[in-house]
């Protein structure tokens, strides 16, 4: 059956989301029900992934990852379900939903509407299906003894008898993906198609690995072959020459050739850490082969038939896997541009590719064929089954299909040979498969990855403080890779510690530690961030005019996240070249006019004060005595214009008034005892009188108010030439100065 989500597409998901971001897709028709998909954005390509294109003439070009965002999750909260959704920047979708043992694909129509179709598919019903998929495992058995794998003891990874993990970390396999020219051709001779296909393939497989094995698959390297004559000469099913002898090639020959290419430093295309190298081939056979239990370990050279078959003698084995997508035509291979009635059919609609890839990589991480794992009498009793093997879809290991177990086969079985949907896309869900398969693989991965790096961060951090998170016990030979949700990492993301700034709560920090063999362990932590800012200065000693020889305490108080410390400086605010005394308050006794400022520093930054200027004045050397004169009017601006008359003083205007030499005031007078009056003001304002010849010192002498004529008693200090300056602030104003005495 098929459901369509009309005209909506997933354009809303085409905008960039940070890895770890969780979303819900509601009202998605899945089979007979309408479901909510709980999804999380996740990474498929390593941030520093090396993605190259080979042109066959020696030219090699590096390209970026495909413009796709990957999401994984479940249908509702069903832990047995799996969802993978790849959203391109144009909103087009390729996805898979596995729920209740039924498989669906989600694909967009390749037009502007981008309607999303959700369609149930079975392996045998899949138009892309190639039911002949086989695995040449037994020929390449190297180290794992045939028979019942033993549940290994709990190692550092915390594997328990029931297959659940007590540790919180996840593991990562850094994969190197090889493709060949035939795949490039099958995918429409398009580099973008190949990379989109590989990203979706590994991403979908990663959903399976994450769910069952808590292991992420990350592409560290991939390359596209765009020319005939790529390094992969073995075409399984075709005649050829091997070790100088004519033969018919099988997938094992292709696997040996892959190992030889990577063992040779001259032909190895990538020197970075890698867990496994997987060749995804478009050549003739639909089959795969892989070395068992070799991920994260070095190469070895086969000799004397010790690798299970003489064809490997003299060739290289190791963490290699070969997945042949088979003799599929360009209309059946998972081509992102192939359409069926306008519906895009890219991966993972082709579940065969996903089955083969996840299956062969499973061998690399020590997964055996489940139809080859026989059960001891004790285990049969323990699990309450009558079967001789975990899966009995084939008799023994390779005798051919027989019957399907009630739980259907694991992804490591051959049960798919019996028809549609007889293999489940899981490593273990029953008791015995969990104990005998999942534990085994988890233990294998755990034993070959670095100790799970524990992140030590404070439980709360200040947002404006660039905060450090450190790995508490870094191990030599490990490279780190950090990512963040709800924040930005400042500077390097590959050190054993990082510096980050939060943008929202909660911040999720993830770190992946990769060892030299390419296996990695990951850890993440949520950090709640307290939003706070630098201190705010609430009070500070104001600027003042000091008498020479005097001192004053300079003191500031600030509020904010503490503790707050203070440091005073001399000079322009922000210039820290001349620190003043340590402490707060400090005592300042400048001998000349000096500017100070203070920096208040809290746990969320610091703030600089504005300038505090201490002006220093020297008092007069000699005093003066009071002399009385008959009260006398010096000036009345209402009189005709002249030295003792108008005009009125305009707003913000200044006027010098001659005092000495008038009304009996001698030239030697230093100040006069006066009454100053503002006549019938029209507005609010003030008059200021000060010695002529200096800048306005900021004083006031008489405040006036509309309609109120007022006088004020004042001592007016004279300039050396016996004048005062009158300054008016308010409205145009008439004023009077009367004197009754002077000082000399």
């Amino acid at each position, binding site marked *: 059956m098929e459901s369509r989500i009309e005209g909506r597409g997933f354009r809303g998901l085409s905008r960039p989301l940070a890895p770890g971001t969780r979303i819900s897709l509601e009202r998605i028709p899945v089979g007979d029900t309408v479901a909510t998909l709980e999804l999380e954005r996740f990474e498929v390509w390593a941030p520093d992934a090396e993605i190259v294109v080979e042109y066959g003439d020696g030219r090699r070009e590096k390209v970026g990852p495909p413009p796709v965002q990957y999401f994984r999750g479940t249908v509702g909260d069903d832990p047995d379900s799996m969802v993978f959704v790849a959203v391109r920047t144009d909103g087009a979708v390729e996805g898979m939903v596995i729920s209740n043992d039924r498989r669906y694909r989600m694909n967009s129509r390749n037009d502007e509407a981008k309607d999303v179709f959700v369609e149930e598919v079975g392996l045998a019903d899949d138009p892309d299906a190639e039911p002949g998929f086989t695995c040449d495992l037994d020929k390449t058995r190297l180290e794992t003894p045939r028979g019942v794998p033993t549940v290994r003891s709990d190692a550092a990874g915390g594997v328990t008898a029931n297959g659940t993990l007590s540790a919180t970390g996840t593991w990562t396999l850094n994969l190197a993906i090889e493709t060949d020219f035939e795949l490039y051709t099958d995918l429409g001779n398009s580099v973008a198609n190949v990379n989109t296909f590989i990203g979706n393939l590994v991403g979908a497989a990663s959903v399976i690995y994450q769910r069952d094995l808590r292991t992420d698959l990350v592409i560290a390297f991939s390359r596209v072959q765009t020319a005939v004559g790529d390094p992969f000469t073995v075409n399984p099913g075709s005649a050829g020459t091997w070790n100088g002898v004519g033969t018919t090639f099988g997938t094992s020959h292709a696997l040996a050739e892959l190992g030889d290419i990577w063992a040779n430093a001259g032909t190895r295309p990538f020197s970075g850490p890698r867990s496994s190298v997987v060749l995804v081939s478009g050549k003739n056979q639909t089959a795969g082969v892989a070395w068992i239990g070799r991920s994260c370990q070095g190469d070895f050279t086969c000799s004397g038939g010790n690798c299970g078959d003489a064809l490997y003698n003299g060739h290289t084995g190791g963490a290699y896997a070969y997945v042949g997508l088979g003799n599929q035509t360009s209309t059946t291979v998972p081509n992102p541009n192939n359409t069926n009635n306008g519906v895009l059919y890219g991966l993972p609609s082709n579940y065969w590719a996903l089955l083969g890839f996840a299956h062969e990589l499973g061998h690399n991480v020590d997964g055996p064929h489940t139809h080859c794992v026989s059960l001891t009498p004790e285990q049969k009793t323990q699990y309450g089954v009558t079967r001789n093997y975990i899966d009995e879809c084939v008799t023994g290991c390779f005798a051919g299909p027989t019957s399907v177990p009630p739980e259907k086969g694991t992804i490591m079985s051959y049960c798919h040979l019996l028809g549609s949907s007889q293999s489940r896309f899981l490593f273990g869900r029953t008791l015995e498969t969990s104990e005998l398969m999942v534990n085994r693989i988890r233990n294998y991965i755990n034993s070959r990855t670095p100790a799970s790096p524990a992140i030590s961060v404070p439980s709360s951090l200040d947002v404006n403080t660039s905060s450090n998170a450190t790995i508490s016990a870094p191990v030599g030979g490990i490279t780190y890779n950090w990512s963040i949700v709800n924040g930005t990492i400042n500077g390097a993301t590959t050190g054993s510690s990082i510096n980050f700034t939060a943008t929202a709560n909660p911040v999720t920090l993830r770190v992946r530690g990769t060892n030299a063999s390419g296996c990695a362990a990951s850890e993440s932590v949520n950090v709640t961030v307290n939003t706070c800012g630098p201190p705010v200065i609430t009070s500070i000693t*104001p600027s003042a005019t000091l008498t020479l020889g005097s001192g004053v305490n300079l003191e500031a108080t600030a509020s904010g996240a503490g503790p707050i410390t203070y440091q005073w400086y001399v000079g322009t605010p922000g210039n820290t070249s001349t620190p003043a005394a340590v402490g707060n308050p400090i005592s300042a006794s400048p001998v000349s006019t000096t500017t100070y400022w203070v920096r208040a520093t809290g746990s969320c930054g610091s703030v600089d004060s504005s300038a505090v200027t201490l002006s220093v004045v020297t008092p007069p050397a000699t005093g003066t005595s009071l002399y009385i004169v008959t009260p006398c009017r010096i000036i009345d601006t209402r009189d005709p214009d002249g030295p003792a008359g108008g005009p009125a003083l305009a707003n913000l205007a200044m006027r010098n008034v001659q005092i000495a030499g008038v009304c009996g005031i001698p030239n030697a007078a230093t100040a006069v005892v006066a009454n100053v009056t503002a006549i019938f003001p029209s507005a609010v304002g003030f008059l200021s009188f000060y010695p002529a010849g200096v800048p306005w010192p900021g004083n006031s002498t008489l405040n006036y108010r509309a309609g109120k004529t007022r006088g004020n008693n004042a001592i*007016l*200090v004279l300039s050396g030439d016996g004048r005062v300056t009158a300054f008016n602030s308010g409205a145009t104003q008439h004023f009077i100065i009367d004197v009754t005495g002077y000082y000399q």
Partner: protein
Amino acid sequence: MRRLILLAFLVAALGMTSSALAQSGPYQYFPLSPCRVVDTRGANGTNGGPALTNAIRSFTVRGFCGVPTSAKAVSLNVTVTGASASSWLTVWPSNVAKPFVSMLNFEPADAALANGVIVGLGTASQDLSVANAVGGVHCIIDVTGYFQ
């Protein structure tokens, strides 16, 4: 007879409150360029905020604006602004009890009002005391010279 006894009691009480007035001098005047020494509209501090209430505030004048520590009195221009009630200001040397005098009477309708005053200084580091009678008001003091 009873009336006379009561009168004697009142005289004794008045005599107690009108005693202990001190004189000093004579002093010479030393003019200074006008200089703002107190502004309660500024940040809180010795010569800054907060606004006056009827509690006594003591400011430091000597050492600022050219007034030496030897000064015995200062000539000031005292300004009030932002009065919350009709009130008056008392200004006195901080080494004596608050006298029952006024140097500036004002009302809220006065946006600002000033008066000149010559007043002695106390001997403590905070040498000039000011108190408002009713409500709150900001006080600005400019110094125009000192006596010693």
